[in-house]
């Protein structure tokens, strides 16, 4: 029972209280660029979860074999193998999404979350826990991405997943899409506000400590 609780804790921690983007400030590079539309954010979140969990698992399996002083390059080549797989898959089955994501799938390699989890967790924990940790971090990252994309697509272009949700009569009485939401600064500001919000919500806990 204790082990199960521990696993659950490892899974839940990165989703909320130790969220990679909002709390640890890792992996923001790609998080901001792909969040103009829900569709790209969703695909990115899935690819990230896939790469993160697979590479954490493999690195953890090999953790006793990897020599310490060349571990970074070994980790990078394991990660890039999975990134190449993801990129080839996306180009074969979702070409238009892969065009929109452009270089950002490739940039999963240098995403600090993947390297950070490999260094901080996978190298010192058994494979099944590393896998759980990878999935948890992937979901924590993905949920922030999807929330930001939801806000930006809804207010920026009045659509969700490419379907119009803001009714026409709102436009006819003078409602306009906030074009600002589609631009780079909006992403920074939304993430900043989210960090504020989350810290504010967990304030009571921190004060108790």
């Amino acid at each position, binding site marked *: 029972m204790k082990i199960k609780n521990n696993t659950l804790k490892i899974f839940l921690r990165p989703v909320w209280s130790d969220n990679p983007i909002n709390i640890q400030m890792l992996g923001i590079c790609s998080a901001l660029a792909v969040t103009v539309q829900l569709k790209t954010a969703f695909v990115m979140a899935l690819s990230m979860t896939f790469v993160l969990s697979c590479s954490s698992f493999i690195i953890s399996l090999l953790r006793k074999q990897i020599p310490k002083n060349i571990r970074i390059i070994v980790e990078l080549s394991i990660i890039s193998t999975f990134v190449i797989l993801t990129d080839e898959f996306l180009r074969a089955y979702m070409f238009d999404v892969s065009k929109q994501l452009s*270089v950002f799938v490739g940039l999963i390699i240098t995403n600090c979350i993947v390297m950070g989890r490999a260094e901080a967790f996978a190298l010192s924990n058994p494979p099944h826990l590393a896998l759980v940790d990878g999935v948890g971090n992937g979901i924590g990252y993905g949920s922030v991405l999807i929330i930001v994309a939801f806000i930006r697509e809804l207010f920026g272009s009045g659509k969700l997943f490419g379907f119009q949700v803001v009714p026409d009569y709102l436009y006819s009485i003078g409602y306009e899409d906030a074009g600002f939401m589609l631009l780079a600064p909006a992403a920074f*500001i939304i993430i*900043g506000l989210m960090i*504020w919000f989350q810290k504010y919500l967990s304030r009571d806990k921190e004060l108790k400590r």
Partner: protein
Amino acid sequence: MTENLVSIFLNSVFTGNILLAYFLGMCSFVAVSKNINTAIGLGFAVVFVLSVTTPLNWLLYHYLLAPGALHWAGLPNMDLSFLKFIMFIAVIAAMVQAIEMIIDRFSAALYAGLGVFLPLIAVNCAILGTSLFMVERNHTFIESVIFGFGSGVGWLMAIVSMAAIRIKLRYANPPYGMEGYGLTMIVTGLMAMAFMLFSGIAF
């Protein structure tokens, strides 16, 4: 020709700023911009590594990896472009290591200034991102040199000005939960807005 190069340079420094418009290199940007001296050190290290690795990756891509690039070796139908991620990151990691050793050997002062930042740079998304953008935008060799240098300068400008702003922010009194990273992100957003004004100028 020259006009084109100037416009690529100005574009990569201002309107297409690698950090403020494409969000690359955010992690080290947030972590290192607390102190202006370390920000300058890391900024110059990034300029240096970018100006070396971008042209190097151009050569690698166009003579080994691109579709048909192995024509000179008698393999005109070979397409190795799917290997570009792993090759680029290997080149970057190797270059960073080599630069670190060279600086260590020849200039103790420079090593003391840049040394600690160099290993960090290998996993900075801005470096890999610039190489990938260079492939996507079909730059020529000269253009890739200018593009790499310009991106580095843009990143340097962004991180140094951010460090300067954060020194002032230390004396600010933000609401609970806003201090630190939240405020940094919002200030970065405002800075990105300021940089967008440059897009009104036609280069």
